[in-house]
């Protein structure tokens, strides 16, 4: 009980301290760019109403979801093919190495040419930026499937779709998840900047709009919302990962003990 209390103390102490520091340091602030935290927090419920959540936050999230999911599907599928065949891998490697190195944000102006400034553009930007870490990590994961495991599978007649599902993808899943995690932060960046560049709704659009109209406390609430969104998405991701990769963490812990 005492240990639990101590842990709880460690979890909340520093965040509380920091928030308190912000609160008091900004309390009497007259600097327009650094409004008092109290002002920001009182503005918050006025800005982020149910209507705004529906009209701005939801579209942003849906675009992120659409782009991210298509990147995941394409990345894992292509990565599995490329990772399974040595020759295909040798052919694709230099090109992939280059395409991965292109900083994803430059895709915004490029894709705007093709897809205009609508939802398609934003989803395409998110998808084409997120696909590389997923693809390359899948290739690595699929390539590294243990030789004894694949021989076991073969000798027990586990081939084709069953082999892919039960052996190859499961064995590559730690790597795939590492790629998915990198892709998630890239996806959020692309969601925001594609909306900042050209949009009429969405989180990125709204926040830039506040900044341009010098609604500074509103802008600060927007920054908080984006931060909160990043945090929440990462928590969701971790929950999913812990479920899917429970075996992997257990395996690692057990091999570290011995």
């Amino acid at each position, binding site marked *: 009980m005492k240990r639990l209390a101590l842990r709880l103390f460690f979890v909340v102490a520093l965040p509380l301290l920091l928030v308190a520091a912000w609160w008091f340091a900004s309390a009497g602030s007259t600097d327009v760019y650094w409004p008092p935290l109290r002002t920001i927090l009182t503005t918050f419920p006025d800005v982020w109403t149910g209507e705004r959540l529906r009209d701005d936050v939801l579209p942003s999230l849906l675009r992120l979801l659409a782009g991210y999911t298509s990147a995941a599907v394409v990345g894992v599928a292509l990565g599995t093919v490329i990772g399974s065949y040595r020759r295909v891998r040798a052919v694709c490697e230099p090109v992939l190495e280059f395409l991965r190195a292109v900083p994803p944000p430059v895709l915004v102006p490029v894709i705007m040419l093709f897809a205009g400034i609508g939802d398609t553009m934003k989803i395409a930007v998110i998808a084409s930026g997120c696909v590389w870490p997923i693809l390359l990590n899948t290739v690595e994961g699929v390539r590294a499937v243990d030789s004894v495991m694949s021989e076991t599978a073969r000798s027990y*007649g586990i081939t084709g779709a069953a082999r892919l599902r*039960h052996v190859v993808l*499961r*064995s590559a899943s730690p790597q795939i998840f590492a790629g998915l995690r990198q892709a998630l932060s890239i996806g959020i960046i692309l969601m925001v900047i594609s909306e900042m560049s050209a949009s009429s709704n969405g989180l990125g659009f709204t926040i830039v709009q506040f900044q341009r109209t010098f609604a500074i406390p509103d802008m600060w609430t927007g920054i908080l919302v984006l931060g909160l969104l990043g945090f929440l998405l990462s928590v969701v991701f971790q929950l999913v990962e812990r479920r899917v990769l429970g*075996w992997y963490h257990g395996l690692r812990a057990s091999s570290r003990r011995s």
Partner: protein
Amino acid sequence: MHGLLSVSGLKKVYEGSGRRVEAVRDLTFTVDAGELVCLVGPSGCGKTTLLKCMAGLLTPTSGEVLLEGRPVSGPPPGMAVVFQEYGRSLFPWMRVGENVELPLKQKQLSRQRRRALVADALESVGLGDAAGAYPWQLSGGMQQRVAIARALAYEPDVLLMDEPFAAVDAQTRADLEDLVRGLWRDRGITILFVTHDIDEAVYLGERVLILSASPTVVQEQLKVDLPSERDQLHTRVDPRFAELRTRVYEQIQAAKRGVVPGA
């Protein structure tokens, strides 16, 4: 007469990046239904290559492997393999029960039949209550028991075991040897057991095949005329056991020097 499993004129040459390695030169032997045969040979004599050719995992350069008279070209359904590396042969993302069940699903057995086979196989290796655990939660010896259970549940005609106990401690190893003997006697399956351990080969086998050093041929075949009821304490101090052991040992030494009897 044809045995259940027969290997004739088997040769395997690895070729890659300008080097040519002849792992197995010319192997011929048969295993009859219900036999427990141990293959023993010096380290690096191509035992694993041979086993993989028999399991249909490698294609021999020449010669052939027949299972029930039919040539083996890919992994045959009537054969199960227990690998040395239990840690890499069991799937760590599946629980013990799922590991045993997966090959059965592939065989498209009914759920009821699968359950019965899994429970029976785990029971017979003494892991009746471990179905819900992950392999990495078990000790090395227990993991190898799971691998054996998976092979048993598959109901093979022939069970191939590739140095299955090389990576477990001596105590566990003795227990596992008795387990294999027991399973063989109770279930009447045909077992081909590959090992580099002379004591193990003599203790387990009804017949011992001694392989020469690489490139590999059969150096000698030896009938183990020990009583079929064996146990770790008495069998290993039996004078006959010592004689057989010495015999095998001499042959392996000869094999290492490259002396081929009768050649």
